[in-house]
Structure formats: C-alpha cells, structure tokens
C-alpha cells in the first residue's frame, strides 16, 4: 500500500469534510467542560487548510503536511491550533521530499505528531487531552505492524485503541487546558480534543480501507 501526494490531499480534504459534519458535536462536547468552541475552531482551521492545499501539486508530502499545520496554527484560535498545527508540522519533517508514503512512514508520521503535541502542550497520558486518543493509537499501530498486520488491519487497531482512549477520558479529571478549572466536574464527559483526534484517525482508516 503506498499513498501518493495527491491522495494525501484528498484524505486531508475528507478530514476537513468530516470535521465540518461533526462541528456541532465537537462544540457540544466542548461546551460541557470547556469554552464550547472546539467544533467551530476546527472547522475554521480545516477550511483554511483546504484553501491552502487547493493548488498543491502533491509532489512533496512533507510540504502538504507543513501547509496543513501552518493553516491550522494561523486559523484555529483555540488550543487545538498550536497542538494540531505542531502535530502536522512535526509529521511533515519525517516525510519531507516524499512523493508517496507507505504504512511504515505513516507510523513515523503519527509518532512525530504525538511527540509534537506532548512537547507543545507539556502534557502526558491520562490528563484528559488529545494524547489519550493518540498515544494508544500509535502504540496499537506499532504493535500491529510488528506482528505482521497489513496497513488496513493496523489502522483498524489504531482506531479501536483511540476509541477506547476517548471513552477512558470520561473517567479522568482534567488537569490540562480550560477543563482543568472544573476539576471533578470534568468527570463523566469525554475530552473534545481526544474526540476530534479519533475523528481524524477514523477518516484516514475509512479512506485507506475503501
């Protein structure tokens, strides 16, 4: 399975569409424990991403991911801007110059994205953040590939792990971000950032498996 640059752009556009469709859902999640703008912010960001990738020739996947990150950083407005922005920009560095990528490259992309988010947000697992979806997904993808799974199976396992991770955020007290001001009141609600991260991973899986 190799994915060419133009296909990467198609997948990112699909992510933008899915974010748009789930704008209200993400905003509702955020309204429960945050400032209620996650859906709107992500939608604004990914609309800008679409615009920025419109004329890209797809010849450098690193460039595509970098443009995506820059557009998110400049247009989101909330914490997800610098977090997802950093994730895409860090990911861009590991595939810079590539015209097509394999699942092994994608593994490195996700690893770099996770690393970027951890550094930017000074956060770790179990703090009710994006990391609670992304880190289990990265681990599951790595294990699956090490055990001989193909790309589709490995991505499916990553999505499942992220889903479990999102569910788990309901049991955690938020200690990072706006939700941390709520303390115990944040229990029982899932983290909107983890939810949007799952959404992105699901879109990638759906696009690769179809």
């Amino acid at each position, binding site marked *: 399975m190799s994915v060419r640059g133009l296909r990467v752009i198609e997948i990112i556009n699909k992510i933008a569409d899915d974010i748009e469709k789930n704008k209200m859902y993400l905003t509702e999640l955020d309204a429960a424990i945050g*400032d209620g*703008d996650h859906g*709107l*912010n992500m939608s*604004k960001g990914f609309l800008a991403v679409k615009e920025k990738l419109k004329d890209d020739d797809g010849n450098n996947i690193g460039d595509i991911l970098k443009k995506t990150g820059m557009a998110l*950083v*400049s247009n*989101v*407005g*909330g*914490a997800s*801007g*610098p*977090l997802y*922005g*950093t994730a895409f920009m860090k990911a861009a560095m590991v595939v810079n110059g590539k015209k097509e990528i394999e699942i092994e490259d994608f593994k490195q992309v996700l690893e770099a994205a996770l690393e970027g988010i951890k550094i*930017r*947000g*000074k956060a770790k697992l179990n703090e009710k953040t994006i990391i609670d979806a992304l880190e289990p997904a990265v681990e599951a993808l790595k294990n699956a590939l090490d055990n001989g799974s193909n790309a589709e199976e490995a991505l499916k396992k990553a999505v499942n792990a992220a889903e479990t991770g999102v569910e788990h955020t309901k049991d955690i007290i938020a200690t*990072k*971000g*706006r939700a941390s001001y709520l303390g115990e009141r944040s229990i029982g609600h899932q983290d909107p950032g983890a939810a949007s991260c799952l959404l992105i991973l699901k879109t990638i899986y759906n696009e690769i498996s179809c």
Partner: protein
Amino acid sequence: MVGLVIVSHSQKIAEGAKELASQMAADVPIAAAGGTRDGRIGTDIDKILACINEVYSEDGVLVIYDLGSAYMNAEMALEFLDDNKKEKVHITDSAIIEGTVLAAIQCSMKKSILEIKEELEEVKIQKT
C-alpha cells in the same frame, strides 16, 4: 526600553490591560494581541507576531498572557522570529492585569528585561 505584548483570548481584556497600564506608564510601548483576527475569542499567532515586532527594540519584549493556549500560541510565535530577536523576547506567567501594570511601570523606569522578570515573580501564578 523593554516593550510589552499582552496576549489574551479577549480583545477587550488585552485592550483594557493596555489602557490600565498606559495610565501609569504612558511612554512604554505596549501592544494588545487579543482575540482572533476575525473577531472571535481566542489567540492568533499572526497577531502576536505583529505585536512583538511592533514594540520590539534591542532592550527586548516581554509577553504576558492569560490562559493556557495563549501560551502555546505565544511560544509558537517566538519560534517564527529570527534567532537574534528570539532570545530577546521572553514569555512570563504572571497574572495578566497585575503583571501588565507592574511590568509597564518597571519598563518606564528603564529596567532591564531580566530585572523586570524578577519583579514579576511577585505576581506569578501557576498557569500551565
């Protein structure tokens, strides 16, 4: 003279903090980076960068912010500065209003950025 940049999710808070501080230190370069460029609540890396450049001098710039993601965007803005500018721009985690007023007074007294940061320890709060 050290310049100040106030980064807030709200344009009104950033403008208000600037207004308050300017009353006591009229000659200090202060720039308000509040809200997003399309008028939403949030922080905007391009606005922050423009504000840093607006008040920048060799004496340096102190960035004061309100809540978590403002810090992340301020930090990213710094990463986009040239290396020689970058080392003269510092982010401080003081209470936004108290910090801005105190810093502005210290700036007007022509203190160095390190001296001002030390004074600001007094109004430091746990932010990230």
